[in-house]
């Protein structure tokens, strides 16, 4: 199966499969990487690209298939093995010791041949590499890594694998941590590395980056390789089709409806993330009674921060959240839930070691009739649990089964039942169908639509445009912490329009503006 052209294959994955529990993360993926190319792996979160990288780097073990490095089959059991083979990864979340200097961090990672630390040699190597690729770290070699910017830390990570002698470099969602102004210089570094002969595997979900730097682009969807195309043939449209699915012309059948009364208003909300970088930038939006609003956004673009900020789990830097006329910007989550807000998460909705029964009151253990004066009423809880298990088709042999033993679909149905039974007026559904089978997904849509009819508002956050267009009355798109589009009438909106916005393909082109 050798390609006819000259390029030498440095790394090849053959028929790689990987399963996590009931989820097929990689389904028989075969892919080869040429010497000296920048090969971009494109896909949504969970499409399988990172799993493939982790298998190549030795962090996960594959279930089936084989990996060839320079034409030889290799068993990669740990990063140690892959580093020996000249494969190095720049991880999405840095693995640096903040209290050590750049020199010490890199030295820790270098191959040690001597017992005595060769500081001089290491210093010379690092200086040389830093100068060669214009990292600008030459004068900071003895600075503590903790005092560096995120961009500089990333350069240290790159230096680490270069100093270790890796020739194949994996970049995993490398630009997520970067500030916008650091982006161009980073891409330049990747290009320079490539020019010096390094083979680069570049993982991203951002189309623009893929278009800018790739020699070849491989797109992943739902654990499968969709295809590989040369960089010069790639267009925004082609890539969007590959990433989101084929039937781009499909639009929504949901008719726009009369807007009810305002239930929640978000005014110029800004939130910063753990690293102190802006996660949400002046987000403004308004929600009305009895509607489902879709929020399309690929993970890492701030929708989780919006969900947490709205329910009160994350501190707001500036802006206002007004619920039914009262300012709740700084209220505790408990208060918001008492007022009728609710968060339906994609996972972690249940306490894994609690029984099915006990999990049915997780949001409201203090509420009558489940507890009175701090004492639990087992009978009331059992009756409540029975009702939820029946109404929401939770298949369980017993109410006392540990929740961890339920399948994913049953877990989400149980959680949704618990949320809906508290009669919320505004529900934030954060990727509520993630990882579920079609039947469970359908059940969740049905319940949400039924609740909408009864006047509940749902903010439905997701990545899958099919489902967003299926259930939403209106649709918003979030990209890099900003609402980049709002669609009030979905009949005229195609998946392509939304897909381009989601991946940063075109910013605010012919799109209705954010209303105030």
């Amino acid at each position, binding site marked *: 199966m050798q390609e006819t052209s000259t390029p030498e294959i440095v790394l090849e994955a053959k*028929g*790689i*499969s990987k*399963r*996590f*529990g*009931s*989820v*097929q*993360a990689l389904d*028989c993926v075969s892919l080869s990487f040429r010497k000296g190319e920048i090969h971009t792996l494109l896909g949504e*979160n*969970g*499409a*399988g690209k*990172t*799993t493939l990288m982790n298998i190549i780097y030795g962090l996960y073990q594959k*279930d*089936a*298939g084989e990996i060839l490095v320079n034409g030889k089959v290799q068993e990669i059991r740990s990063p140690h093995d892959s580093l020996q083979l000249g494969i190095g990864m720049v991880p999405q979340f840095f693995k640096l010791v903040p209290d050590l200097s750049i020199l010490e961090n890199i030295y820790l990672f270098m191959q040690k041949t001597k017992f005595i630390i060769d500081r001089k040699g290491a210093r010379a190597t690092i200086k040389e590499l830093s100068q060669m690729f214009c990292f600008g770290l030459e004068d900071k070699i003895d600075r503590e890594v903790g005092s560096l910017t995120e961009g500089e830390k990333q350069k240290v990570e790159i230096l680490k694998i270069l100093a270790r002698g890796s020739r194949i470099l994996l970049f995993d969602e490398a630009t997520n941590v970067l500030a916008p102004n650091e982006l161009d210089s980073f891409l330049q570094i990747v290009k320079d590395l490539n020019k010096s002969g390094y083979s680069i595997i570049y993982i991203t979900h951002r189309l623009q980056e893929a278009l800018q730097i790739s020699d070849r682009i491989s797109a992943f969807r*739902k*654990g499968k390789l969709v295809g590989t195309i040369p960089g010069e043939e790639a267009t925004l449209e082609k890539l969007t089709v590959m990433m989101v699915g084929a039937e781009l012309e499909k639009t929504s059948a949901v008719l726009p409806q009369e807007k009810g009364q305002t239930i929640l208003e978000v005014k110029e909300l800004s939130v910063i993330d753990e690293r102190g970088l802006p996660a949400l930038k002046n987000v403004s939006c308004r929600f009305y009674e009895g509607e489902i609003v879709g929020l399309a956004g690929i*993970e890492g673009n701030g929708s989780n921060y919006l969900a947490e900020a709205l*329910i*009160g*789990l994350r501190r707001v830097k500036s802006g206002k959240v007004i619920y039914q006329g009262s300012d709740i910007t700084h209220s*505790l*989550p*408990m208060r918001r*839930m008492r007022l009728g807000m609710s*968060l339906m*998460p*994609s*996972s*972690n*909705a*249940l*306490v*894994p*070691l*609690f029984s099915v029964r*006990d999990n049915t*009151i*997780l*949001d409201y*253990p*203090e509420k009558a009739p*489940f*507890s009175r004066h*701090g*004492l*639990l009423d*087992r009978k009331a809880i059992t009756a409540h649990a029975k009702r939820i298990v029946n109404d929401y088709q939770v298949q369980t042999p017993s109410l006392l089964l540990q929740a961890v033993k339920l399948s*994913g679909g049953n877990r989400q149905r149980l959680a949704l039942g618990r949320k809906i039974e508290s009669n919320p007026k505004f529900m934030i559904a954060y990727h509520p169908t*993630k*990882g*579920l*089978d079609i*039947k469970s997904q359908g059940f969740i849509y049905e319940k949400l639509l039924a609740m909408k009819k009864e006047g509940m508002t749902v903010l439905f956050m997701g990545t*899958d445009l099919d489902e967003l267009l299926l259930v939403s009355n209106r649709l918003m798109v979030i990209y890099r912490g900003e609402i980049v589009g709002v669609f009030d009438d979905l009949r005229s909106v195609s998946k392509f329009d939304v897909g381009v916005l989601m991946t940063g393909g075109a910013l605010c082109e012919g799109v209705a503006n954010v209303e105030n």
Partner: protein
Amino acid sequence: MKTNKQPNLNEEDARLRTMRRSALSISKLTLASPLAYVIAFLLTFLIGGAVIYALTGQNPISVYGSFFAHSFFSEYGILEVLAKATPIIIAGAGMIIAFRCGLWNLGAEGQMAIGAIVSTAIGVNLNLPAGILLPIIFLASFVGGALWSGIAGFLKTRFGVHEMLSTLMLNYIALKLLEYMIIGPLSMPHPNYPRSSEILLQAQMPFLQYPLNVTFLIALALIPIVWFILNRTSLGYRLQAVGFGREAARLAGMDIAKLTMIVMLVSGGISALGGTVEVVGDFMRMERNVTGGYGFTAIVVVMLAREEIIAMPFAAFFISGMIVGASSLTLAGIPAAFSQILIGLLLLCVVFAGYIERWLRHRWEYAGKAAC
């Protein structure tokens, strides 16, 4: 029934993270089944027996026989075992409340010391009838211990200091404070060695049959109380939700910082009563070794009992039996400290057996892998 599901990597990552975290919480997931226990006990006594034989050349079985004969088959021995188990059970009960909330309160020893100090200070000085004095002593000890562990709770919720470190360090401060008290403010006049005056007669609790004190009944009564708190109150529900599913509890809107504080207070308060019973039910005064390391022993006991409140007293009896039996070891020419070695070995074996079992199960579950 395999449908093509969308991969969910974050969930997988979260699962791996929880697994890693639970590697710390030994008793929660590693000690899986009774079988692991049987293996662990056999292993402990096998290794221990080999050491006995290698060191003294005696028949290990007869040594073990005399070891347990005193603890469990003589009347005085049994009473002694129950008496020694009293502070261990109380400290363990306090500890379990914290452990069930995922908080590593290892400060029972120090909290006991605070309990002992408070009860001595009151028991020596406050001349009231027993019916009023004793409740005051217990209540004040509870408050003292709660405030002491509350320091760790405050450091945790405010500055993120891990409670394992802070409670452990607070132990040494409390023990030194206790020493200062018996040579300083609470010292008896002209002592032969550092100790406090005897507490007032009405503060001394009666013996059921020497050496077993009425305080033993208090320890026993604590078991259903703690069980009730954990299983029948919304506080217990919430604290275990945090302990067993921190992220789920957070997403459900629970105020984890506030719960952490409450749990640390209650846990420390109960553990402190372990020191109180040593003063009012055994020593009748305060001495340097009044806490006797029972706060540390309680850690072993709680782990052996897998943080199960009902199982905990039995684990306490067993460990206490090993402590009491130590004196009979010296008759066989084996140092008494050997029983401490056995206790340590037992804990290691139980943890080890748990890991082995979990590993086997893991292999078993992932045996059927997907082929291409």
